């Protein structure tokens, strides 16, 4: 008799513990996404974007990468993020002053390289976007870029055979929302880091500059670094470098965002990391080579009320200075991140 009760008690407990485990499996106990570390390169400041609120994981990154390369996010399927941001061009648009978007329309500005975005507080040439997570909404919905409606994108992703699984793997729930899509894109774009150029290797003591490069670096520090500040090669401020207003585009830059006349024709100082492969240059891509940009600083600066004091009297640069500077700018090319398979189009 007692034996029978012991057995039934045992059976009850066994069933109970099985039930407990089965419940756990559906929420807490299942294997969650694999955490990924975000490493701050030596000498870099703390990033602005905090992955604490959007925990970086292998699965989140993989989903973001797929989204970045997927034409589905655009209205006609032809314009993924990667159509204007190509890895081999440091995620800028190779050889395009302005980029092609939906319906044969062009963007109004030059597509910038995408790297070290986690250190930027504001985005776009005019800094109009205040957070990396909401940045994709601009290209996704702009009629001259991807021209889609966010609700439509979510419908397309829900109907897809793979995405619900990928969202589930990344966020522990197959439900697809714009917020999760943006968080995943941010995990991908925000973790693209470029800090392995020759310049970085020199700084780490793993390489040394040639004498031309070293001379270029000295000129750079004297004449350029107050705006293109190391180690990001931008101080992220907005400046007018005296580029004449282009008729047709009539781009007033930062003033479009602040409505302040003192911000007229100011643009965000671009990073000069990977500058060589990301030609053409300037907010509207009007300069074809870095030599053209330097010619602008030495001879082309137009005066105007908001032109930066550092360039308003032009920057004196001899042809030798320009040669040495160019040699130095080549040392800012980080070919390892442009070839890193983690950032390339998923198979």
């Amino acid at each position: 008799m007692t034996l029978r009760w012991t057995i039934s008690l045992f059976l009850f407990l066994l069933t109970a513990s099985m039930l407990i485990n089965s419940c756990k499996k559906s929420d807490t106990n299942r294997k969650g996404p694999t955490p990924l570390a975000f490493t701050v390169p030596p000498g870099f400041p703390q990033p602005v974007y905090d992955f604490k609120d959007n925990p970086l994981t292998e699965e989140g990154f993989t989903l973001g990468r797929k989204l970045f390369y997927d034409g589905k996010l655009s209205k006609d399927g032809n314009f993924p993020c990667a159509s204007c941001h190509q890895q081999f061009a440091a995620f800028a648009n190779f050889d395009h002053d302005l980029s092609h978007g939906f319906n044969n329309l062009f963007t109004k500005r030059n597509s910038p390289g995408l790297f070290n975005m986690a250190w930027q507080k504001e985005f776009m040439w005019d800094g109009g976007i205040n957070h990396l997570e909401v940045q994709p909404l601009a290209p996704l919905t702009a009629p001259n870029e991807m021209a889609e409606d966010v609700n439509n994108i979510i419908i397309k992703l829900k109907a897809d055979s793979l995405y619900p699984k990928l969202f589930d793997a990344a966020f522990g729930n197959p439900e697809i929302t714009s917020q999760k899509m943006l968080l995943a894109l941010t995990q991908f774009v925000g973790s693209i880091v470029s800090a392995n150029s020759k310049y970085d290797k020199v700084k780490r003591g793993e390489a040394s500059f040639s004498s031309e490069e070293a001379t270029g670096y000295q000129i750079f520090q004297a004449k350029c670094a107050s705006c293109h500040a190391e180690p990001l090669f931008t101080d992220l401020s907005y400046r007018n470098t005296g580029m004449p207003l282009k008729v047709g585009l009539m781009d007033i830059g930062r003033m479009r965002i602040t409505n302040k006349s003192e911000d007229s024709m100011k643009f965000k100082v671009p990073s000069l990391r990977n500058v060589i492969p990301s030609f053409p240059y300037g907010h509207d891509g009007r300069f074809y080579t870095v030599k053209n940009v330097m010619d602008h600083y030495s001879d082309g600066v137009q005066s105007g009320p908001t032109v930066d004091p550092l360039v308003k009297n032009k920057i004196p640069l001899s042809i030798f200075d320009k040669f040495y500077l160019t040699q130095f700018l080549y040392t800012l090319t980080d070919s390892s991140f442009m070839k890193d398979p983690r950032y390339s189009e998923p198979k």
Partner: protein
Amino acid sequence: MKHSFQKILSFVTISAFTLLTLNACKKDKSAEDVQLPPEVKDHNLVLKFKAVIDTVPLEFGKSYQNFFKQSFSVKTFKFYVHGIEMINTDSGKVFRTGADKYFLVDFSDSTTTELKLAVLPYQYNRLGITIGVDSARNVSGAQTGALDPAKGMFWTWNTGYIMAKLEGTSPSSTAPGGVFEYHIGGFKEPDNVLRKPVLLFPFGQSLDLKPGKTSEITVTANIGAWFYNPHDIKFNENPVCTTPGVLAHQIADNYSKMFTVISVVNE
């Protein structure tokens, strides 16, 4: 003797079993930020918004006249509300409903015009609301729920929420297609359009929330108020406002006066 022992044992086993299973399946629910008595479960106050033009209920597409006798018809009318407060000016007591809870009141979607709130049972004689989205929510990245940017109340190129939107057509409008478009937003000073009107109740009425009962407040949102007092907004002069700035500020001043509590019904 043995028999009753078995009974007890089986009772204990079954209870233990039930308890274990229940606890195992309990989901981690995030704590509510308001301290409410247990009988206020889901909600005990319904706040109903009704769109009107002066005194008549709004019908989309129908022609009306503004203060300046300019005709117009409405296609879209929506706004954000949060920070709802129930106030008793006699005792000085204020009850704030979950400050982080945002509602998008969209008159083309009747499921959004009745807000269900949980309020501490008490007597109140004022209703405070905040129209718009706090600056913190404008600067902290991707949001969800009522603040999902897919709701079309978000500027993508100059980050920020559109706090209130009114769109339609008017023969007086000088914009292409005779449209008018008021997308009112701006969270940075001096362009901040957040407005916090405090609304009186109709004479002699008060909100008297009794434990276990539900009350209902009906508030009209008058589109007519967008166009005057204190600022004149005419379709021929200002048919479009889609950026933060002085005009948006003026329109927000006007619409902050658009609400009237027309009834309070206590169960």
